[in-house]
């Protein structure tokens, strides 16, 4: 009674104190966040980022992801010509052949478009519209360039042994031994067929008319530049890792989940052991499992699957046992009251209650593991993750990098929609059935 009177009297004070505390908290939170972000700003040296940022890399990346260049090079020592897309062996034109903007001969004419023409021969001539004629006679004494009178524009870089001219139409680099022209084109080079394929340069209609679908497919599938077959396999491997890992983990975690659930596991010790196992599997984390397993099984999709399987056994075990602990006893009692044996009690009393929860969790993880499989593939060496890291390491195949990124996004979105569709289908079906 005394308590009551004592607590009613200062009720207003209590309320205003609590208001003050709330107000303080709502002010303190942004201040704390700001303080932390400031600390991180300095700890990560974000201010120094401006110096570290590599603008030329950025330009290469952006330009390369939507365009490609063809190299036309003349060896000044023996006059040999080499024409190659992206300068790669896989994209080289056979000797004596050239694209239609290159006229081979004693002096090779290269049309760069918009009136820019380069002549590659013992004397290199580049007629730049609106500027004038640039000539050079590379030899043992240097490149011997002669430029129109006037100040040197900044798009020309000239020294005794090197001349580099960059215009909107392309790029010309001359050294003593080599004169090289780059011409840029939009698009992804040789995406369908490489130069050695007879189908290169044919229109879709011509391809359709030719009727050689088997050979056409073969040339496309084994395209040396883009390796469509390998990429498709890599995608399959990645999805496979996610599929095997997720469902394998679910199958192992289900019985273990029963062991770890308070209301199903009679033995406290067993329950404790199962729970600690889940904690351990989750705590060690996919990264460490991947490292450990790749030592035993080598790189590949199996290692990735097992790494996902181990990590997710821990996760699923925890989720499943929690779901089992929340099971409604009434349904089980109802089944038991009809004289059902224990197995029937589980089958009709427990399983229908937990299936929707478990299925939706497992299917959610299927999508999320597709992403994990990409990352694990990059670490252990398998699937699309490996192709992506390889392409990034070369630092020049950015068109392939963008291709892989697009494929990865499409793959994840496809898996997301697939698992969503399956979830609706299975769970709605179950609800209707019971």
């Amino acid at each position, binding site marked *: 009674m005394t308590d009551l009177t004592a607590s009613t009297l200062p009720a207003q004070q209590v309320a205003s104190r609590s208001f003050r505390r709330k107000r303080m908290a709502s002010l303190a939170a942004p201040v704390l966040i700001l303080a*932390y*972000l400031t600390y*991180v700003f300095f*700890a*990560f*040296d*974000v201010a120094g*980022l401006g110096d*570290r*940022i*590599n603008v030329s*890399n950025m330009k290469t*990346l952006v330009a390369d992801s939507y365009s490609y260049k063809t190299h036309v090079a003349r060896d000044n020592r023996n006059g040999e010509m080499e024409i190659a897309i992206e300068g790669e062996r896989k994209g080289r034109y056979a000797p004596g052949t050239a694209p239609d903007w290159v006229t081979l001969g004693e002096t090779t004419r290269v049309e760069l478009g918009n009136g820019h023409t380069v002549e590659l021969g013992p004397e290199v001539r580049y007629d730049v519209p609106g500027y004038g004629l640039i000539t050079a006679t590379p030899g043992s004494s240097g490149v011997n360039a002669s430029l129109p009178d006037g100040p040197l524009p900044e798009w020309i870089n000239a020294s005794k042994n090197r001349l580099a001219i960059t215009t909107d139409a392309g790029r010309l680099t001359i050294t003593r031994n080599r004169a090289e022209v780059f011409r840029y084109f939009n698009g992804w080079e040789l995406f369908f067929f490489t130069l050695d394929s007879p189908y290169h340069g044919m229109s879709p209609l011509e391809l359709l008319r030719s009727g050689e679908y088997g050979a056409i497919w073969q040339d496309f599938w084994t395209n040396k530049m883009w390796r469509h077959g390998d990429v498709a*396999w890599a995608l399959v*491997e990645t999805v*496979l890792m996610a*599929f*095997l890992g997720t*469902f*394998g983990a679910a199958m192992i975690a289900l019985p273990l989940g029963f062991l770890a659930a308070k209301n199903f596991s009679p033995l406290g010790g067993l329950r404790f052991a199962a729970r600690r196992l889940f*904690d351990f599997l*989750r*705590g*060690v*984390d*996919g*990264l*460490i499992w991947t*490292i*450990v*397993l790749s*030592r*035993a*099984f*080598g*790189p*590949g*999709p*199996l*290692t990735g*699957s097992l790494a996902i399987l181990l990590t997710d056994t821990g996760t699923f075990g925890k989720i499943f046992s929690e779901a089992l602990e929340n099971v409604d006893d009434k349904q089980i009692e109802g089944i038991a009251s009809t004289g059902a044996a224990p197995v029937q009690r589980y089958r009709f009393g427990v399983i229908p209650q937990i299936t929707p929860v478990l299925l939706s969790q497992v299917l959610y993880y299927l999508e999320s593991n597709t*992403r*994990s499989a*990409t*990352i694990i593939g*990059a*670490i252990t*060496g*398998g699937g699309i*993750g490996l192709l*992506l890291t390889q392409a*990034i390491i070369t*630092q020049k195949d950015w068109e392939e990098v963008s291709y892989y*990124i697009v494929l*990865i*996004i499409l793959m*994840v*979105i496809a898996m*997301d929609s697939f698992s969503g569709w399956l979830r609706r289908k299975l769970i709605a079906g179950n609800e209707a*059935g019971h």
Partner: protein
Amino acid sequence: MHQTTTAPQITADYLAHTRQKRVMNMILLVVFVALLIGGFSTANARNAGGFWNGLPNVFDFPADVLSEAWERAHLLPGYFVKYLPSLIETVNIAGAATLIGALFAFFAALLATRGLAPAPWLVGPLRRLLDVLRAVPEIVVALVLIFLLGGGPVPAMIAIALHTVGALGKLFSEVNENASLKPVDGLASVGAGWLQRMVLGVVPQVAPNYLSYALLRFEINIRASAILGFVGAGGIGYDLRNTMSWGQGKFDEAAAIFLLLFGTIIIVDQVSSHFRNRLTHGRAYKDKGAIL
């Protein structure tokens, strides 16, 4: 129609229905098992080392690491201190990424929830944007940013933050959809602006769920941050890769890093799940008895 069906007919229909369902379930099960076995053998065939060949060696590497760590156990505390700054960097990457991601996700979610969005035409495109952000694995963004910005924690932070915006944005907008619109309408009736309606009408309803999801994301992001370190983005993952590459006889430092990482993940998981429980079940959850 229904009145005319007799009891035996119902039984027969029911049994036919169950039989059909059982057959369907059997078929599904067979297909599933076939996929699983086929998938496993495909994965096994495409792996560098086979499953059965590798199985006996699974414990070789952990045994090497553990025995070396045991032999030089007295060095471990020193290594813990040595790698503590890297660990803090990893945690900071995750922390900053979660904070920044959650801040952006907060606004993105409000703009992407029907009924709350000030510009309804923006809802669709914004949701697609969140989908794409969620679909891009962190490693993709991180690797590209490492190329542009050089190694270090910033690329990893940006990569994880972008993914966090996508993931939390979706969860937050799902929470928003369940929020009652009555306080919002009430505030609107007294002339509150959009921001006031959101901060005073919606946020108090959704804040506990937001916090709970953000904490869960922090747990996930710590793991992501360690993994990104392994591909070159600073933090403890980077040290782990370096120490691993020193090979046999030097595994004691790797063991120390394993332990640090394991301990951190466990501690963060425990602390965060404690707070999440309190947030979702309310502060009174624990002393419910006292109140009742």
